[in-house]
């Protein structure tokens, strides 16, 4: 069976991307979840995880100093373009991009580049399906490769278990980690709020998705927050031929569901049937 991937992204964070993914889960039976929002990996909070397997993620190589060999000549500090080495040869690793210039210029071979763990990848089984997620050590860069790794593990799991769908909670922003969240997926959902920044962000993220020729549709979250804002987004989507597949009004029960660590459609089923949420997910599956 060919597994199909659906990615949910949002441009900026906090538009309800994770809540939307959490709401979609009960409508997909045969699914693997890939939480690619490695800055705020929150989906698992609403799920009961079992059989968690943890693996190191090596992001890059960074220098390690052999203090016995170092003659404090300062060549490495002088050559570093990232200001990651102090004059007394202390590495400021959070600034180090792992280029290897210090290792090269060291006249006494006191510096060696070694594998550096920047985060962890977790695979688990939840009541909604298998799940893959990651967590970065604070201060480390979200790399497209970590996202690619999460997706790869999700794909392997889907293939091994014969799962039909992979739901991706994508990275926020528009940088390379977002690109890694959407390359090769069958559909992208853009979650947007009707705010001034919402439209600004929608344009940027839509431009990105368009450049990959992936089928995309918009979910307008908290649609009743601003009539003017909503009208602007509707107009933009219409002009761009971008479908608004779902409009979700603001409901406190969405927040209450999260507070109670429940998936929103299980907490407030009437709200979801009133929204036509099943029709929305059926459309995604078609």
């Amino acid at each position, binding site marked *: 069976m060919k597994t199909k991937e659906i990615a949910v992204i949002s441009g900026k964070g906090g538009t309800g991307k994770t809540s939307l993914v959490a709401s979609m889960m009960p409508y997909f039976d045969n699914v693997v979840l890939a939480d690619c929002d490695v800055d705020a990996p929150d989906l698992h909070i609403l799920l009961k995880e079992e059989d968690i397997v943890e693996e190191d993620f090596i992001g*890059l190589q960074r220098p390690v100093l052999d203090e016995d060999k170092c003659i404090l000549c300062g060549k490495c500090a002088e050559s570093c373009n990232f200001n990651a080495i102090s004059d007394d040869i202390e590495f400021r690793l959070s600034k180090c991009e792992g280029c290897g210039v210090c290792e090269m210029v060291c006249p006494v071979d006191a510096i060696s580049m070694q594998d550096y763990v920047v985060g962890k990848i977790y695979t688990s089984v939840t009541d909604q399906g298998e799940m893959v997620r990651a967590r970065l050590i604070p201060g480390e860069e979200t790399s*497209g*490769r970590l996202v690619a790794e999460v997706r790869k593990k999700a794909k392997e799991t889907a293939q091994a278990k014969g799962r039909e769908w992979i739901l991706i909670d994508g990275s926020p922003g528009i940088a*390379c980690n977002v690109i890694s969240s959407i390359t090769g997926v069958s559909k992208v959902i853009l979650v947007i709020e009707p705010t001034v920044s919402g439209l600004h962000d929608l344009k940027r993220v839509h*431009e*990105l998705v368009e450049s990959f020729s992936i089928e995309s549709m918009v979910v307008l979250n908290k649609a009743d927050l601003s009539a003017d804002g909503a009208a602007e987004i509707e107009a933009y989507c219409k002009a761009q031929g971008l479908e608004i597949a779902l409009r979700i009004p603001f409901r406190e029960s969405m927040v209450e569901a999260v507070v109670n660590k429940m998936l929103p459609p299980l907490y407030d089923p009437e709200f979801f049937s009133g929204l036509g949420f099943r029709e929305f997910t059926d459309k995604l599956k078609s």
Partner: protein
Amino acid sequence: MLAVCAKEPGLDSKVDERFGRAEYYVIFDEAKNMPQSIENKAKFEAGGAGGTAVRLLNENGVDVLLAPELGPKAMDAIKAFEMTVYRYTEQKTVRETIEDYKAGKLSKIDTSTTPSKHGLRKV
């Protein structure tokens, strides 16, 4: 020499859907009829896997490549290393894909099939 992107080593492996981040390349010497599989070390790269993969294939004497999608950087590298690329679109085995190539069923490509993953349009 001919190379095919593969998920696993050997002629009976399925072809990979990616070029730069393919798991393996099965390199096939048409004259000797001998397959050899190499692991793609470029797949671990954070960015620019395509170009580095082309360099790796060149070091192994490859001049014809059978591949799925190709990004613009990989395509530039392929031209600079003077290789020819034929594109497959079906998930067959390496052996079947080589048969398709020999039968002239694969089309030659000389432009990238996906947009750039970096440096998109300006704001």
